């Protein structure tokens, strides 16, 4: 009879189910990056002059910067000149005005991904912006949103229609030279979503963006900017997939959230970029900067993420709690398998009085993967009465993986209180025995126990996403119980 551990290692493998390539015609830049490429990109998108200047400034700063090395990940150097910085599905001169005008191949792609672009979207009541390679291909539900005064459109469109908002807020949370990949993104970002919720408005729909990298040898550099004006609320969902390709692809996104007084943003991510095969070949390098500025009093931001994809993840959704009584939350499930590497966590910067933050992080490592939580909780001298609670738990499946915790806690205020707890353990033999004694298959038992381990995070996800996340975890774990 096999031991539990052996059985846990025996689960059959299932291939990445979003790994197909869509055969559509694309306009793709030749690989390489220089100022001309940036000028062409900006021209192609008919951007205002200030935007080109902004990009060039970012590019020049990027040239002076060094690739960060502090993360607990290993990968060969990215060859930035082998990457194409723009790829867009070919299409009629004008943007599609409705779904009927969208390339049917593209729609099929989203259908395969299970993304509710069409009728399903209406039923689900979710407004979707879909970003395919470098451009936003379609945004649904524009009218009801417009009626509420909500702006939800590709950021390239916002640049045309609302340049004053872009000028005011773009880069206000993540400055152009914030870090290496943010600078690169600022120079070359091609599209992404823009959201503005006017004062006092509760966004009538869940907003959602699906990102898809399709073309080979391209990088994806999307930029998301969400502004929640005084007293507004929005829930925003983000999902990502990519085809299976042998080479690594770079994804370097920037997400900026701005919250004014009493505003609230709930930002949920299910990240399922292609993780590479079981030998660690291929997969996405996911180097992302996400940051929320709670500039207003009593504002509240929640980041919820379920990270199962990417060969390498390097991502720290952060909260700058500047407004008094503002609240930051971070709920994360990160699962790594095979040769995946994740270095992820959050930063909670307490500046205002009575600011509060909560960090719940659940890391699951399987195969030969490496999974690290890295977090910073910082109390500035003025953060009177600030509070943080952090719980980081790691679960190990198999004896060839790693689980790490690197929390930085810094306090300069005597009235601030922080509590940090972390545990690392494995699925216990006793739990497995109980499940199996009740007739449950070992792999199903592991999946159930892991889902239970993540429950505190899943309950923060919008309903539809929670179901998706649970399934995703199950699929991602297959082959781990081996």
């Amino acid at each position, binding site marked *: 009879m*096999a031991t539990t551990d052996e059985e846990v290692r025996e689960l059959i493998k299932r291939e990445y189910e979003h790994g197909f390539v869509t055969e559509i015609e694309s306009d793709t830049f030749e690989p390489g990056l220089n100022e001309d490429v940036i000028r062409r990109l900006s021209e192609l998108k008919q951007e205002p002059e200030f935007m080109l200047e902004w990009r060039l400034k970012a590019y020049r700063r990027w040239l002076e910067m060094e690739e960060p090395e502090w993360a607990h990940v290993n990968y060969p150097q990215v060859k930035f000149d082998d990457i194409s910085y723009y790829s867009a599905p070919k299409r009629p001169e004008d943007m599609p005005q409705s779904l009927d005008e969208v390339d049917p191949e593209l729609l099929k792609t989203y259908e395969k991904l299970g993304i509710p672009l069409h009728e399903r979207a209406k039923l689900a009541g979710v407004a979707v912006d879909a970003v395919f390679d470098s451009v936003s291909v379609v945004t649904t539900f524009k009218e009801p949103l417009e009626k509420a005064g909500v702006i939800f459109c590709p950021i390239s469109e916002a640049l045309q229609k609302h340049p004053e908002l872009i000028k005011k807020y773009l880069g206000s949370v993540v400055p152009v030279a914030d870090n290496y990949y943010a600078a690169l993104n600022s120079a070359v970002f091609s599209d992404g979503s823009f959201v503005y919720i006017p004062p006092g408005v509760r966004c009538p729909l869940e907003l959602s963006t699906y990102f898809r990298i399709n073309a080979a040898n391209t990088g994806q550099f999307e930029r998301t900017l969400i502004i929640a004006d005084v007293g507004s609320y929005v829930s925003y969902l983000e999902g990502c997939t990519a085809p299976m390709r042998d080479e690594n692809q770079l994804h370097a996104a920037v997400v900026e959230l701005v919250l004014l007084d009493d505003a609230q943003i709930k930002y949920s991510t299910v990240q399922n970029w292609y993780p590479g095969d079981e030998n660690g070949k291929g997969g996405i390098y996911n180097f992302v900067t996400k940051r929320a500025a709670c500039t207003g009093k009593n504002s509240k931001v929640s980041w919820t993420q379920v990270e199962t994809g990417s060969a390498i993840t390097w991502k720290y959704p952060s909260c700058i709690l500047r407004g008094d009584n503002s609240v930051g939350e971070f709920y994360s499930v990160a699962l790594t398998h095979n040769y995946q590497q994740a270095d992820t966590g959050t930063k909670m910067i307490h500046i205002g009085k009575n600011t509060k933050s909560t960090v719940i992080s659940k890391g699951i490592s399987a195969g030969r993967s490496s999974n690290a939580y890295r977090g910073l909780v910082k109390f500035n001298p003025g953060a009177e009465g600030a509070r943080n609670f952090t719980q980081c738990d790691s679960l190990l499946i198999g004896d060839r993986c790693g689980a790490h915790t690197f929390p930085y806690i810094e306090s300069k205020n005597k009235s601030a209180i922080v509590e940090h707890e972390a545990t690392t353990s494995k699925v216990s033999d006793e*739990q497995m025995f109980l*499940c199996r004694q*009740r007739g449950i298959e070992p792999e199903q038992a592991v999946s159930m126990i892991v*889902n*239970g*381990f993540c429950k*505190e995070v899943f309950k923060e996800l919008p309903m539809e996403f929670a179901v998706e996340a649970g399934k995703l975890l199950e699929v991602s774990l297959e082959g781990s119980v081996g």
Partner: protein
Amino acid sequence: MLSIKNLHASVEDKQILNGLNLEIKAGEVHAIMGPNGSGKSTLSQVLAGNEAFEVTEGEVTFNGDNLLDLATEERAREGIFLAFQYPVEIPGVSNLQFLRTSVNAMRKHNGIEDMNAAEFMKLAKEVSKQVDLDPAFLKRGVNEGFSGGEKKRNEIMQALLLKPKLAILDETDSGLDIDALKVVADGVNALRAPDRAILMITHYQRLLDHIVPDYVHVLSEGKIIKSGGPELALELEAKGYGWLGIDDQAAANHG
């Protein structure tokens, strides 16, 4: 139904069972008594297939099949149920989800289609009432934050739900107050059926006041040293184990 011949088993290189023999037929209720460390719990773990225990000699057949060849979950699906002495907690997994997964695993094995959520909820509520558990328990994590008595009732509730062929109850009476004991005993009595056998493992006689067994066996140093009818339990209660030549204290220290 169950036939154990010359069973030897060890845990972490320590020999616990030393040639145990036992025959159980359908419809019978057997009680195994013995001092601490005599091997009672080991027997239940070995029958259920806990891999921490190693069978070094002997054979066990269940309805004619070699039980020792089967994986833990296969034994469960063949109808062996173990009510744990110390049920483990599984944080975040609701009792309802756990039980439904379990019931459906059994049904699948028997070629019956899955029970849907509504159907299952109805059934689960019924059995939870039978052991006097608030149906709200179904939504809580498996054994998470349950009191000792609640855990034991939860185990019996699962037996009622899964309808096993052989139910092994490992010290299901320990740690219960008299009211809870009564509830648990009623649950076990409800399990009694002509096609079902029950094996109760207990240190004390008091459970046997409520569930009258057909046979009582005394286990000492990994072997059955005496068997008899219900009157044997009463005799043990009156005289202690010393009467059979067992030094209860020494046995306890040993185990």
